[in-house]
């Protein structure tokens, strides 16, 4: 197997992490923040895999590979949970922009469900069907 220089991948991983951190801190939209967190995670995975390739020996270090493997699946699940929370946020009329301006910035709140206007009632999506 030809030797592959892992250094560009380490730098690319650091770049993805920093870019994602900037997105989390600077972008007000919730979905952009979720994407940015995913970018950070991808940077970490890239660094882990590149580190595994740096270890001496014929095969890459299997332990970081195992961690990345489980990490990818967990990050998908965390993203799904975050998106479900974002959807709840929008359904509750809070808007998806976290810029401190509240509802005005997000436009008019969705019309309340005629059958159940209570905030405790689960459900814009139920009302939609």
């Amino acid at each position, binding site marked *: 197997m030809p030797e592959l220089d892992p*250094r560009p991948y*380490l*730098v690319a*991983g*650091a*770049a993805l*992490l*920093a*870019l994602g*951190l*900037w997105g989390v*801190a*600077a972008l007000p939209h919730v979905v952009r923040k979720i994407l940015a967190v995913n970018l950070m995670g991808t940077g970490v995975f890239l*660094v882990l895999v590149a*580190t*595994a390739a*740096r*270890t*001496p*020996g014929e*095969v*890459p*270090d*299997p*332990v970081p*590979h*195992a*961690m990345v*493997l*489980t990490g*990818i*699946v*967990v990050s*998908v*699940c*965390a993203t*799904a*949970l975050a*998106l*479900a*929370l974002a*959807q*709840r946020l929008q*359904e509750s009329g809070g808007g998806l922009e976290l810029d401190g301006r509240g509802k005005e910035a997000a436009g008019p709140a969705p019309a309340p469900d005629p059958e159940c206007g209570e905030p405790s009632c*689960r*459900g814009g*999506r*139920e009302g939609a*069907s």
Partner: protein
Amino acid sequence: MIARAAVAAACAALFAGLSWVLLELPVPSGLTAPALASLPASGVQHPVTAALLNYRGYDTLLELAVLLLAVIGVWSLGRGELQDVDLSSRPLLLSLLRLTLPALVVAGGYLLWVGTFAPGGAFQGGALLAGALVLAQLAGRGRAVLGREAPVRIGLAAGVAVFALVAGGLALARGTLLGYPPGQAGTWILLIEATGFVSIGLTLGALLAGGRPRTVEDRDA
């Protein structure tokens, strides 16, 4: 605007510092040698699968618990819609599904099996199973694959339940958490991986619905 520029500068500094540290890191001795040395006793022939299910089994056990928690979290936030579209008027989509869905499930099962001695395993196979479930839902057949609540719930919990039972049982019987009996590790790992495969696939596939699927009973009520 000033705050944004400050954040950008801080992140640029983080990138520079992190790159420098990563490039200056001494070459790690790594865990390749011990991982390969213990491979004959691990019950499998591939070091990544051995790290996942044997050396670091407790880690994978907790990962499966995290997957179940994610589903519980999403389900507690609202109800998801599973479509039941009649595809008889769309024969092309129907025949595509009939070809690809079984192929995806078989390929996932193959990846699960091949993980014993080559790249593959429960996570990779589960991802393919999830792909099949996503495809079915996007084609409007979500009710057909995820509509029955009891089997779906059992499947979602089976991975972490079987793993925890095996871990706890072995801890009681042998005094070590996930200390497989010599010579039997492969069998236990395959049992854990097979149920984990189903749970991982179902978890990732069910998350697409965006909430607890409405059942037929809910609709009638």
